[in-house]
């Protein structure tokens, strides 16, 4: 956009600015804004539905195997989760502030608010990324990648801390991989999950009695929890990344003096998106971190 255009933009009245952004097939700026808002709400509805599939998977497995969720949730760090929540909520507030600034035409405040919101997004990614990294190091992963070593659950020790325990777990896991994969069309009750038969048929194994008790006190199929955990938080993190990109786009346009009382729809709509991303985390945090 040329220098001239920017100059006229700032001088023009809100109505003129609104008219300039009016697409040919709309009659009034109000009609255009309302259409955009309805479209955005519908899109956000589909975002909820996208996550709803994962929430359903969560609900089904938690209903059938509550012990897995109670056990595995202790591996997650609620402090880190709470920190994530705090950062996201704050960025939600700064986003709301940004919308207000755009409506009032306060350019500098808008830029600051957007920068803070973007910082919040990055803050969330950093904290959560570190959590992922820790989980990766401890092999607290999905599917066959789940084989935690000596580390006991973070929140409360349910099994005795001993080297033998770790050994037996990985051995059992090995066996599970080798041949006791039970092919069911329904969810196997936890007791006959992959490690179940292995445990039952290994009386002569050189595993100490204590470790067998320890292994037994760990529910089978804990990896399911981590599968769901990574899918849910991963999909959410992707949305945070998309949000940061959109916010950066807003930032560029804010610096270009595009927004004011006559035209602030993009700030409003992307703000809605950011709000929904926040809100989904509000569900994820208690469902994954705070199970007791």
């Amino acid at each position, binding site marked *: 956009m040329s220098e001239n255009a920017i100059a006229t933009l700032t001088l023009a009245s809100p109505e003129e600015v609104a008219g300039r952004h009016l697409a040919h097939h709309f009659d009034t700026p109000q009609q255009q804004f309302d259409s955009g808002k309805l479209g955005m709400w519908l899109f956000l509805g*589909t975002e909820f539905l996208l996550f709803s599939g994962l929430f359903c998977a969560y609900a089904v497995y938690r209903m059938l195997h509550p012990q897995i969720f109670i056990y595995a949730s202790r591996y997650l760090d609620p402090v880190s989760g709470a920190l994530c929540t705090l950062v996201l909520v704050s960025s939600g507030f700064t986003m709301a502030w940004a919308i207000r600034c755009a409506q009032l035409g306060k350019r500098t405040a808008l830029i600051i608010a957007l920068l803070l919101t973007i910082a919040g997004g990055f803050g969330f990614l950093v904290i959560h990324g570190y959590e992922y990294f820790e989980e990766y190091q401890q092999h607290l992963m999905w599917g066959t990648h789940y084989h935690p070593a000596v580390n006991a659950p973070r929140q409360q020790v349910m099994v005795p801390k001993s080297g033998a325990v770790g050994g037996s777990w990985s051995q059992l896991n090995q066996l599970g991989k080798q041949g006791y994969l039970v092919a069911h069309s329904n969810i196997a009750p936890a007791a006959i999950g992959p490690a179940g038969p292995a445990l039952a048929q290994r009386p002569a194994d050189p595993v100490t009695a204590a470790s067998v008790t320890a292994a037994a006190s760990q529910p089978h199929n804990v990896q399911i929890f981590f599968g769901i955990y990574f899918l849910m938080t991963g999909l959410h993190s992707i949305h945070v990344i998309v949000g940061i990109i959109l916010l950066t786009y807003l930032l560029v346009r804010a610096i270009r003096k595009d927004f004011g009382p006559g035209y602030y729809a993009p700030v409003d709509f992307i703000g809605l998106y950011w709000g929904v991303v926040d809100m989904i985390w509000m569900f994820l945090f208690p469902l994954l971190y705070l199970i007791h």
Partner: protein
Amino acid sequence: MTTTTVDIGEHAREEIPVGGNYLNQGKGIKSWLFTLDHKRIGLMYLISGLTMFFIGGMLAMVIRTQLLVPNGLIFHGSYEAYKHYNQVFTLHGIIMVFMVLVPIPPGALGNFVLPLMIGAKDVAFPRLNLLSYYLYVTGAIMAVVSTLLGAVDTGWTFYTPFSIQTETYVVWMVLGIFLLGFSSILTGLNFIVTIHKLRAPGMKWFRMPVFVWASYATSIIQVAATPVLGVTLLLLVAERVMGVGIFNSALGGDPVLFQDFFWFYSHPAVYIMILPAMGIVGEIITVFSRKPIFGYKFIVMSSLAIALIGFVVWGHHLFVNGQSAEWDAIFSFMTFFVAVPSAVKVFNWLATMYKGAISLTTPMLYALSFIVLFTIGGFTGVILGALATNVVLHDTYFVVAHFHYVMMGGTIIAFIGGLHYWWPKMFGRMYNETLGRITCVMLFIGINLTFFPQFIVGAEGMPRRYATYLPQYQPYMIASTVGAYIQLAAFVLMAGYLIHSLVRGKKAAANPWGASTLDWSMASPPTTGNFQQMPVVTQGPYHYEDMEYDGRLGGFVHVEPVPALAGVGAGH
């Protein structure tokens, strides 16, 4: 300004720049590839969709040719050969469902007609509309790529655990379908906002044509069901790429959960396919019976009821898959229940024709075929929805026959009827009416001959998706294949006379059928801006007393001072 837009015929003709219309306003390939005009995007959908329909149809011919003899005419004798057969029917299903039946009725006809019908200049988000189209194209290309790398052999349903184990390129195909789903969501979203916010002055909700209502109901399903398909497909990708284990019993997951997720989308998707078809049939029947549609509000409400009830019947695909008896009963009951609004529609169409001045034009013949074929498909759906019979008929050719009656005999027939109905508006040309009627009769015979024998062999226990069969079924299978070739001949004939119409066809009048909806109120084809003046609506969509056929124009014109619609000033 006293000129009225509804004043079809000479007035409209004079106002349009000579020879100017959306097809030639803007030249060159770029003006098409980057167009934001809903009509051009509709045409691009049409061309892409017909291309995919051709490919899917050829695959169907391969299947039918294979089944001419019990041991298989094309693929026989080896595991590899049978695997190729699996790939063929899988691709046939995927192409027809995800690239033709779901996206094309809304994408082609909906895009073209819907803004015209409600008096809008375009859809609410033209750029998003173009994006939808390119997502569709990209999805289709990814499907082609996956086919070249290693064609999927899971069936179009991608059931786990096989879809996790097979060596074929499931991930590519599934990601392609994810894009197709995204395209479908955006189209639905666009239509909902268009209908809510861009109706012409006076176009109240209950003055909208039934096709608009049907599109609205379709869009609701597209927006509300497709995201679940999206997440299901993403989970399947995560399963194959990461081994996440949600659907894998070896890792503690549940393969049946996939089926629940899949059918939560795919049953409502059946209504994505059939609702626009029902809307098209409603429009055709009222116009060619010269009678306002009977029970307008019932038709409207039944569309919405179908859309809503359609969300709670998915379990009827899992009657024999370990679902509890209680859920079986609930899903079976809901399945019966969803038949009610469909039946309401059929009764209303019949009542519309009762004592009407019916003219058996090509579109009308298609609408009548639709009613017959859809009713057969619907009734056999009730048989499959009943628990006792479902256990016997599950995964037999009875199921194949049922959904082909609904999809081919329903959606495709109605879509072709709609294509013939709006053809003059789209291209400004008439087609050969006699050939049109002959083709429709051929298709009607061909479809019945193809699919009716499959009910019989299905009831006798012939399983679906097998490359071979017992010799006792051969007579039926031969009849079925002959029917398929009759359909092929009909489509070839249709392609011939439609292409001829594009080149040599008689120029079409603004309103050749005498329809009273707004989509016929401008010249054929319309200009890029659709309406010369903003139309103002003062009454319901269907009223036929005030128009009369004018032989010189080859179309209908208004005879009375128009009470229905009046133009407003050029202030807009």
